[in-house]
């Protein structure tokens, strides 16, 4: 079968819920960050697929993808700075051990 919009939507949905599964099961901050990256990538695939197959006369999907990638890069950099700082003070990056931030 010739791949089309629905195939891409299937891939992005699967990738999104793989990311959700990882985010719910993992308790290590770095692996949770990896799951977030997978979720953001699935969103990007969606934007590009809709731009290609539905609104090829506009470029809004491409623009949104570029902005999502830029914001994801900034988010990853800040998150890793926080993780390394947390490791420095707690000697662990497990979310269960960082619970004193709750109060």
């Amino acid at each position, binding site marked *: 079968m010739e791949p089309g919009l629905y*195939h891409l939507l299937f891939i992005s949905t699967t*990738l999104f819920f793989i990311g959700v599964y990882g985010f*719910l099961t993992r308790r290590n901050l770095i692996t949770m960050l990896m799951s977030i990256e997978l979720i953001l990538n699935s969103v990007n695939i969606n934007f590009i697929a809709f731009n290609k197959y539905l609104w090829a006369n506009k470029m809004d999907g491409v*623009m949104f993808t*570029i902005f999502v990638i830029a914001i994801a890069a900034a988010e990853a950099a*800040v998150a890793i*700075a926080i993780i*390394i700082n947390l490791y420095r*003070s707690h000697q662990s990056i497990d979310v269960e051990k960082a619970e004193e931030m709750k109060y």
Partner: protein
Amino acid sequence: MNGATIIFYLLAALTLGSGLVAVTTRHIFRAAISLLFSLIGVAGIYFWLDYQFIAAVQIVVYVGGIVVLIIFSIFLTQQSGEKLPQQKIGRVIFSGLAAFCGFVLTIVQVMHYSFTGTSDAAVEPTVRNIGEKLLALDKNGYALPFEVVSMLLLAAMIGCIVIAMRIPGAPKKEIREIKEDVMLPLLVEEKILIVEEETGGL
């Protein structure tokens, strides 16, 4: 089934398979490498769709930037060769169930919806077109979000420096853990003493 179709299915299998390994393996370094291959698969899908610029940005930013950053942070925070602790089986079951139900719900909705696209002439996503759109000042231009994102990147850069900076003169390792069970009786005794002092005069 022609060559392009086979390549598409191979890219899809690479993306989803290594994505699945990235969230399930107990070796954190292996998870990072699987994430790398998953992101390369996504870049391959962009190439397959003829969006070369987005694919190049994906490789430069994700594969060359974020994954390297993640690997460095693994080296800085993890003992090498150590496996992640075993997950609680209940959490795995319920997370898998939640993800699976969400997946089925979404996929049923998507497959039953018939999308109607435009029939207007396509704009080629070349670098020239993307750049002109990104810096256009007219109604459909993206100059303002471009500037906002540049401010965001500047703020993130300054924020990272401030967070990761060690304050000069501060002690190298702070003693963080206050033993509550040791401190609590002392505090209680002090309070009792204070109360006795206050009420003793009456």
